[in-house]
């Protein structure tokens, strides 16, 4: 009975706290502006199946793909067992499904055990890859500190979780094999791993020790799950939940600009050109902060796994430039989290207008995204799409980079001075270079060239 009450308290607290943090992440994501993501549902569903569940894009690099796939499947399937743990915990029963499901129960738990064993091995290989080998994408500047610790912590959690599972199942098996208390410990059948690992590790222990160890394993499992749930919102492993595939983004046309251009050219409908003229303040174009990005961009940032595949294929990064697509995503997430915390503080000095309450629309902390992402970084992008292609969770790092460029050029009238002649030439002559010759001079030249060759 005490155990039941304790379980109920711990679970409710664990789930409750995690829920609160997830609501904050949601709030932070919605700091971004609107974006219509509707359309082409069948294509999306297909993407979802292939890329999220099938991990299709991981398989460009087969070794990590196979290891990650094992971990991922083990993680997902283990959650079936969690249902039983929750019911057992609240009702004070033991392995509530074992008797009713019979052979099928043995099959499911065995399946989980085999996957878990695979996950155990994969986790160790991952720890070696992260720490003993020098894989360049794990050693970039943006990985210093928390990101590297984060990657190792999750692997440690995984090991603890697996130790819990095998202790729980292994001791249970030994208790059953020795027929110590068949009324409380129902027959689970021969489990694929525990039937040999259990006796090997726990054989010969007293019934009392076995009982204590079984409970310890069981509690370790559920506590680890709760810790994990609460850790998730602070970690790159949010991608479990947020990596939601969408179709490849195309650049949006910025309606305000279109209206302005149309009115200048004297084309378009009656409403063309009125939007901007009606506004009192000069509108801002592009993004200099999370508020100017779309919620999808911010969610992308929260679902980034920091794997660095984008950075490892970025031509700018490969040739030693500061730009790292992964860092752009990490910066957006850090900034969104920072704004979220400041909004929670309710402090007056974060208000744009001191009279009004502190909200995302009335927020000014004197900094913006450009304090995280330097101009040098966004200028170095060749828009080659290699990062977009490389991302296993379909993030488009190019989109925020281009929105920052838009802010610089359209709102600040700044940006690389080298581009000014190109813009001027385009505006004045319709070509990227100002040339004195007609555009089809080459065609005229062809006539004389052919005459010469004849």
């Amino acid at each position, binding site marked *: 009975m005490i155990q039941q009450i304790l379980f109920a308290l711990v679970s409710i607290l664990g789930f409750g706290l995690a829920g609160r943090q997830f609501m904050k992440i949601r709030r932070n994501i919605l700091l971004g502006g609107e974006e219509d993501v509707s359309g082409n549902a069948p294509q999306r569903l297909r993407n979802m199946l292939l890329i999220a569940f099938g991990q299709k894009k991981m398989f*460009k690099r087969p070794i990590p793909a196979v290891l990650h796939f094992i971990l991922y499947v083990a993680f997902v399937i283990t959650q079936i067992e969690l249902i039983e743990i929750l019911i057992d915990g609240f009702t004070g029963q033991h392995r509530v499904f074992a008797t009713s499901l019979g052979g099928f129960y043995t099959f499911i738990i065995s399946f989980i055990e085999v996957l878990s064993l695979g996950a155990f091995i994969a986790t160790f290989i991952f720890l070696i890859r992260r720490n003993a080998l020098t894989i360049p994408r794990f050693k970039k500047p943006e990985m210093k500190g928390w990101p590297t610790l984060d990657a190792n912590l999750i692997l440690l959690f995984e090991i603890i979780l697996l130790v819990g599972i095998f202790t729980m199942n292994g001791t249970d098996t030994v208790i059953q094999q020795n027929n110590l208390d068949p009324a409380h410990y129902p027959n689970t059948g021969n489990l694929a791993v525990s039937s040999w690992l259990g006796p090997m590790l726990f054989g010969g222990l007293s019934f009392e020790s076995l009982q204590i160890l079984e409970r310890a394993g069981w509690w370790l499992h559920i506590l680890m799950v709760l810790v994990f749930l609460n850790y998730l919102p602070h970690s790159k492993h949010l991608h479990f939940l947020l990596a939601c595939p969408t179709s490849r983004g195309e650049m949006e046309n910025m309606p305000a600009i279109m209206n302005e251009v149309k009115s200048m050219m004297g084309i378009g409908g009656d409403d063309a050109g009125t939007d901007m003229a009606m506004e009192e303040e000069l509108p801002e174009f592009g993004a200099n902060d999370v508020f100017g990005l779309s919620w999808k961009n911010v969610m992308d940032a929260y679902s980034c796994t920091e794997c660095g595949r984008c950075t490892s294929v970025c031509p700018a990064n490969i040739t030693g430039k500061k730009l790292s697509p992964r860092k752009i995503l990490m910066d957006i997430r850090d900034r969104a989290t920072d704004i979220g915390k400041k909004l929670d503080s309710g402090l007056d000095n974060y208000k744009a207008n001191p009279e009004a309450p502190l909200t995302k629309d009335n927020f000014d902390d004197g900094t913006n995204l450009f304090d995280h992402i330097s101009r040098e970084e966004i200028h*170095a992008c060749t*828009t*080659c799409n290699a990062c977009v292609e490389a991302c296993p969770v379909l993030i488009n790092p190019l989109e925020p980079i281009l929105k920052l460029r838009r802010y610089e050029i359209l709102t600040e009238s700044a940006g690389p001075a080298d581009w000014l002649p190109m*813009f001027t030439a385009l505006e004045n002559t319709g070509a990227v270079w100002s*040339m004195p010759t007609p555009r*089809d001079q080459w065609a005229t030249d*062809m006539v004389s060239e052919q005459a010469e060759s004849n």
Partner: protein
Amino acid sequence: MSKSLVPTMAQMASEGKEPEILFWVGCAGSFDARAQKVTKAFVKIMQATEIDFAILGNEESCTGDPARRAGNEFVFQMQALQNIETLNMYKVKKIVTACPHCFNSLKNEYPTLGGHYDVIHHTELLQQLIEDGRLKLEGGGTFQGKKITYHDSCYLGRVNGVYEAPRKVLEELDADLVEMKRCKTNGLCCGAGGAQMFKEDEPGNKRINVERIEEALETGAGIIAANCPFCLTMMQDGVTGKNKENEVMVLDLAELIVDQIN
């Protein structure tokens, strides 16, 4: 009006004719001395295969791609809307271009602005002509058995998924096509995209075109085939920087083909 072998849409329209296809030349193809050679080679191929085509001539304007990638949406839309007006006025249905940046804008970005055309890249047209038997190459040509490597441009390859058409054209040359380590979806940029062509590099330890040319030279190929005027410039700069301009040629697919048809 200047005497020209290449009809413009305006001339065609004045004679009440509509060509089968519009050749979109682009800024580089029109003004850049190196890219002009590609333009001329492609025109010769179209003339030799009796394709009914025309150009816009002075009515053509930059598609606006470099402005858009630089963040100047205003200039992009000015260019785009003006071009769409011109194209729609001539009721253009089909466009071919030798520039993957123009290709991408016309194909993927103009539709939402009101310009709907069937757009193909010149390497795709070349492949179709070969497949249909309209373009016949001399067997045992200059390139037989020679090593050629093909550089995927980002906007034809990764962005638009055209990998096979240019390779099929190269196979027709009876050459030995050798791939670079980073090819197709993994192809490395030449360094010109995103309006980088028009500015100096940010500080780093290497230029992107040097990184790419080192990879191309590793294949041992004597010819680097390209499909983009900006790639041509970048790759040629890379070759010259390595003092290999006498051993390694950087050529567009149209230039490789035009030599084989006389």
